């Protein structure tokens, strides 16, 4: 197995173009498991951990740019105010050791339906910036997941960064696992409030072939929220939101949980997270 270790982003793009058979690796939290379990045996690895350009984050014009090399641990500690949903999700990834290695971009590269970073990126309306020697393009998170563990990357492209709108409004993320830490999601859900344009964003994880939004639920809740008066959330509207989120899912029975449980849990999580987010919004506005 070859190991190619570019020292710059330009070298990485060149290597990607020349050797599309190499599997890009960042934290290795998915790739190494697959290799150790003999589920895949790539011709080689393209190690992106030595590329300095992608190891940082910045904010520009209300958009947070998270470099592909930024770890979950950094997101958790540094970006809790700028990208609260993503930071909450990052906190649930694996163990501290894994969060020190793993990256949001790596999560996107794997594109697992259970990827913890995906629901908050969908909910907030993030964009994935991908690049090749041919140039840069931006793919909406909503368009990025194209199948089970498949994403919109072309064979010569690498994920350069993730662009997350800084909304300044509440976001929530919740994830079900059958143990209280270090667990792959049985189901997960993210919600994002966008008071400026009176919109609600959602993201569902581990309950469909890909991470996905729940558009009808988004519309329903956005319509039900008292954006002007900031009054409390109507219980029946919250319940309806949960039902619509559950309806948007397409879960399966597997070793981690039943389809019926996943739907049920999503309804509960959606109702709770929406309530927390709205209550937080009301409090923040009031104070």
């Amino acid at each position, binding site marked *: 197995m070859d190991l190619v270790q570019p020292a710059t982003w330009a070298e990485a793009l060149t290597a990607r173009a020349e050797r599309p058979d190499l599997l890009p690796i960042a934290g290795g939290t998915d790739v190494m498991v697959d290799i150790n379990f003999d589920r895949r045996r790539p011709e080689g690895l393209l190690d992106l951990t030595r590329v300095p350009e992608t190891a940082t984050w910045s904010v520009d014009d209300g958009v947070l740019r998270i470099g592909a090399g930024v770890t979950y641990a950094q997101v958790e500690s540094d970006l809790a105010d700028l990208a609260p949903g993503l930071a909450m999700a990052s*906190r649930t990834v694996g163990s501290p050791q894994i969060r020190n290695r793993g990256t949001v971009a790596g999560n996107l590269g794997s594109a697992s339906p259970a990827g913890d970073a995906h629901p908050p990126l969908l909910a907030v309306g993030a964009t994935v910036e991908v690049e090749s020697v041919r140039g840069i393009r931006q793919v909406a998170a909503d368009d990025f997941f194209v199948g089970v563990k498949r994403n919109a990357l072309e064979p010569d492209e690498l994920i350069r960064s993730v662009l997350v709108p800084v909304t300044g409004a509440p976001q929530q993320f919740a994830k079900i696992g059958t143990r209280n830490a270090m667990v792959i999601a049985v189901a997960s859900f993210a919600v994002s409030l966008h008071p400026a344009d009176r919109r609600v964003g959602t993201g569902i994880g581990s309950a469909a072939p890909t991470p996905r939004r729940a558009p009808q639920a988004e519309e329903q809740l956005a319509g039900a929220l008292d954006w002007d008066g900031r009054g409390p959330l109507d219980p029946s509207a919250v319940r309806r939101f949960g039902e619509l989120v559950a309806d948007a899912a397409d879960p399966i029975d597997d070793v981690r949980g039943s389809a019926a449980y996943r739907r049920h849990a999503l309804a509960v999580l959606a109702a709770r997270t929406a309530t927390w987010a709205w209550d937080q919004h009301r409090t923040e506005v009031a104070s």
Partner: protein
Amino acid sequence: MTATGTRARTRGGVGESAARPDGGLKVRGEFAFSSDLWMEGMLWGATLRSPHAHARVEAIRTEAALAVPGVFAVLTHEDVPGVNAYGLEHRDQPVLAHDRVRYQGEPVALVAADHPETARRAAALVEVDYAELPPVTDARAAVRGECEPLHAGGNTVRHVRIRRGDPTASAPVVVTGEYEVGMQDQAFLGPESGLAVPAADGGVDLYVATQWLHVDRSQVAYALGLDEELVRITLAGVGGAFGAREDLSMQVHACLLALRTGRAVKMVYSREESFFGHVHRHPAWMRYEHGADETGRLVYVRAEIVLDGGAYASSTPAVVANAATLGAGPYAVPNVAIDCHGAYTNNPPCGAMRGFGAVQAAFGYESQMDRLAEAVGVDPAEIRVLNGLTQGDHVATGQEVDSAAPVAELVRRVRDMPLPPPTGTDLRSLPGGVANTTHGEGVRRGVGYGVGIKNICFSEGFDDYSTARVTVQVVGDAPVASVHTAAVEVGQGVVTLQEQIARTELGIARVRVETADTRVGSAGSTSASRQSYVTGGAVQAACREVAAELVSRASIASGADPATLSLDADHVVDLSGRRVASVVDLLGGEEVVERTVEWRHRPTTTLDPETGQGSAHVQFAFAAHRAVVDVDVELGLVKVVALDCAQDVGRALNPGAVLGQVHGGSAQGLGLAVMEEIQVVDGLVRNPSFTDYLIPTVLDMPPMQVDVLELADPHAPYGLRGVGEPPTISSTPAIVAAIRAATGLPLARVPVRPEHLTGT
């Protein structure tokens, strides 16, 4: 026999939390485990395993694998020089499958190559023609004789029948229930691994992580067709065992490859392979009926228990005996009728795991005790206090409990411990943890109790002994004691304990414990919570013989009565502590005093085949737990908030190690209660990984209050009582009882899954 530790001034003796010699190494990651073994020029072995639960093997072709560059040997059943069979109690398991595979993962062929990757690739090129057969997967149907026999003699491995008192006794209060226990895995962290080195004399030296060196040796020699003397086994660093290393895994395979190639051969299982490379805890189906008077005092217990032993016998016969003889629990019951069957199926083989049959039964009888408490309207703790065994009572086999049995006291102690604070707001303290599933919504608290009983040491008349060789000699002007046994250190601390015993008995500060190997006699298995008792007894006895020799010499030299002399601080001292002679002087230069002792605990009897009556057990041990849980009843997520334990250990030889056992055992019981299960469908394992076989993390296991009682057993060395297994037994039913209390659900199966709580 009385404790002698109190007089010793030599530090680090019995009763102290002496530091482990391997502790620092393990904490720093420097300890050499068996998977770290390495030898210049060694080859790597790999195993081809059956993908089917049940199939005829019609042909095996090895040519393609042999043609791979770097491959040195490809072996099948035809290459087993001795008898192609092994097993702990029945040698019914092929070293390599011949004409039939009976479980998914059964070894079929072996490869040795110069690189582990090459060996695995070549193994995948071995072509096997299978004709699939319908798998037998229902243990209850299997023992009823409704399935195709998987072995000569049918599908019942063993049936143990217990009849005590009146089999037709009736009672005014009757509760019944059916219960199930899923297949738990020992989930040790160090995978099966070892290194076999061919020797010039035609034999083989095997370095391996195991639990019983001498039983490994006899099975390996049998399969290799060698005299036992030609198979020499040395213990390599063990990364946990919990019963899973009692059966052979790669031992014979590595030796076969080493003898064939003339090269050292190392084998290390991957995590996934490990799930197929060792036995698991027996899944159980149980039907219980408890009869009691209006106050809740037990009149009778009737039970039917079926344990799924999987494809081969392993230790199923002994597990069946435990579940049956301990099936009425730690309670005084005048009338008992229990039938326990162990089945052959095409499910993964099951055998030894911490708690060994007592775990399954405890989930049944403790669930019943809660139902009984509810039926008569008393508190769950009170029903246990009312019925708890005490010294002088008789258990279901008619055996008298002839040492402390403080069941009621243990329950009272956990009941009276401070309760944890109310549900907090920190996410880490809530069900779901930082995954942020609740901020308190849907959370209900529940409290539950569990008590368990376990037999310590080997039962049913087994000749259960350990051998210790103890020497004292002068090294660098100071006496040094050396202890050599074959007792396997699996992490529980038997190396430290041997040091402590030698310091106490010999009054010598410098003690060296030799590496466990087959150059000394058998120590028996590191299982059944028995090593402190049996190897502890052997080391104590051998040390006392050495001490007697030194005292005798001092007596002759000084004229003092030997009964007034003892050893302390490298000297023979008199009753006032005055030094009579130094050990160095008594040894005078080069001389070595050496004694080897084979030590046995008191004998046990077999069980009457019709009634199951007999004094089959050496010692009984008891632990009680009180669990407090917070359950998110809408999501079915559980946070165990408290899991407090009281246990009688007779005497805590190493109090720190005792606490470690209580914590670890309780955690393993927590795992069975709420998450640990090998999921098997049609004989196939669906979750052979630590991604999907979940074991508790530090955020699942609460800090514990532990109350250790020391009620000495006069029959046991130092009064000790085996410690390792009891906490695993009672923690599971306590947690499930607490979840029932929180949810109001009956919950008849472990592990409890979220779906069971939400009904989805």
